């Protein structure tokens, strides 16, 4: 088991009222599994992924990461886990605009103090996997959206994480490119044996996922 949440809750204060973005969620993410979370905008998908990805603190409940309770860990420890064990793919890519594709993929390894030669070798390999060996020295603004998302996928894989968390990875893409990205994510899930958890509206992802959850008003429900 990579991730397990117990009664995970996150509330926000808006003025005088409180909004329950994630409401007592229990979810289990096994090794090599592909999970999709479906729900309308504002249903709590991104908040849940941020909690699982240790980008946010739960109001109550627990997050067990590889059996260890990480819900109350110090920021330093959470960062370490994010760096070594979790790969993020964002809807809006979030590549660093002043770094080339190659440098963006090397970045997480540089942060983890991987020797430069090893960084370069792995970055080249990952960019090969996502089919971008001819775009190594291009800046994000010189890449198409599909290419940019491929770089983001390669970056997410840089430190060989146990889990990839993708927040609407095809949301900004046209259907053909989206299809390519979906195939890529499934390939990675199968070949790299990495668990993938995706928040999406994309029916194709939902159809192919091992497990599908729906989320509505912060409440998560397993689909049959």
């Amino acid at each position: 088991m990579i991730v397990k949440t117990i009664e995970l809750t996150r509330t926000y204060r808006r003025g005088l009222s409180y909004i329950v973005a994630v409401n007592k969620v229990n979810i289990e993410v096994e090794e090599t599994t592909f999970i999709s979370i479906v729900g309308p905008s504002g249903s709590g998908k991104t908040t849940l992924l941020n909690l699982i990805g240790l980008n946010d603190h739960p109001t109550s409940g627990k997050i067990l990461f590889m059996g260890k309770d990480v819900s109350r860990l110090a920021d330093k420890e959470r960062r370490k886990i994010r760096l070594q064990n979790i790969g993020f793919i964002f809807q809006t890519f979030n590549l660093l605009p002043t770094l080339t594709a190659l440098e963006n993929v090397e970045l997480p390894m540089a942060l983890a103090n991987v020797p430069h030669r090893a960084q370069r070798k792995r970055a080249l390999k990952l960019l090969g996997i996502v089919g971008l060996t001819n775009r190594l020295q291009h800046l994000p603004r010189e890449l198409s959206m599909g290419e940019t998302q491929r770089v983001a996928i390669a970056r997410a894989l840089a430190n060989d994480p146990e889990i990839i968390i993708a927040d609407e990875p095809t949301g900004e893409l046209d259907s053909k490119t989206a299809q390519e990205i979906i195939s890529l994510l499934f390939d990675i899930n199968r070949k790299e044996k990495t668990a993938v958890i995706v928040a999406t509206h994309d029916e194709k992802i939902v159809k192919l996922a091992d497990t599908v959850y729906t989320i509505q008003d912060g409440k998560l429900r397993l689909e049959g």
Partner: protein
Amino acid sequence: MCLRNLFRRKARTTLCIAGIALAVMSMVAITVTITSYTTAIREMNTFFTGDILVVSKSQIVIQALPISGGNLIETIENDVKGTPGIKATVPLLFLFSMELRSTIEMIPINITVGIPPGNWTVLTGSTPLRTGGSWLSKNASDEILVGSCLADLTGIAVNSTIKIGNHTLTVRGILDTRSAILGRMIIMPLRTAQEIYHYPMTVSMIVAKPEEGVNVEEVADRIENELNNPIERIKALTSEERNSITDPLLDEVNMWNLGISSVLFVTSVTIVTLVAIINVSERRRDFAALDALGASFTSKVLIVLTEIGFIGLLGSLIGIFLGAIAAVTIVSIYTNIPIQMLFPDIFTIVSPLLLTKTVACMVTASCVAGLIPAIAATRTSISDILRAEY
């Protein structure tokens, strides 16, 4: 990564560096120019350190130079020499040549000094002569020594002749000096100067060398008490008294210098802080993404500090380089010393200590100024930023 960010945002980086460079340049140029002036003024007093200068009561003395006012009858030298506590005396006749130009000149075009032969060192100290020159003989009459700056400006060489009035004077030696005062001097025998400029039996001042161990103040007072009379009113100035005339002025100048430099320093730091704040606020998303990837607090602070430190370092280095050139140019214009003469002495005019201190201050200030935005960058809430800004 941070340096790439600077290199790939060339326009902004260049403008930031230019802003800092301009502020540092102004700071260095103003400081150095003012320091050069105050040094030149203080330098005048080094000619007669410890000596008593006897001048007419109406004479205005700036440090060691009698600028204007009445002269003395030469015979008073014997009275001064006869004062208890005085070992030796040297009478001097000073003649200044000033021209009204568009710029205010700190140093006159030339300073002619008449001095009894054999007493040159009272004025020149250990200043050497340029190759080929020689000191004036004890019997010299129509021979002169010229300062290097004046010689270079007018093309005078050893054994050249110059004509003043009906006198043809031969240049026997050229003083090899960077001193703004000595460099512009024409030194000639006292009698010759008195004759040429029609000051018979007249001197501007008498340098009185006190005996060792005496109280110079007391000797000066004694000279004033014993030699003052209704016909010849004199004053005897010690080094301290001469300094006390100009020190308040110089202190005020230095205070203004400090004030202006402080304002420019604060300006530079403000520029750096603004750059840091803009850099961070514009890249909130980048920092949030870095955070999401697991970048440590130190990594993010280092990114901001390296960028700001680099801008501060480069800006201050360029500023110092330009400031040094500006300072030398300003000093050259205002002292009328050819710029090519000043450049070999650039590190005397612009001291390495000042340069080092300026760079160190700017880099430190840059880093301190960048620290606040850097810490702000580490406090970004990843989930809020990555969600809210799209």
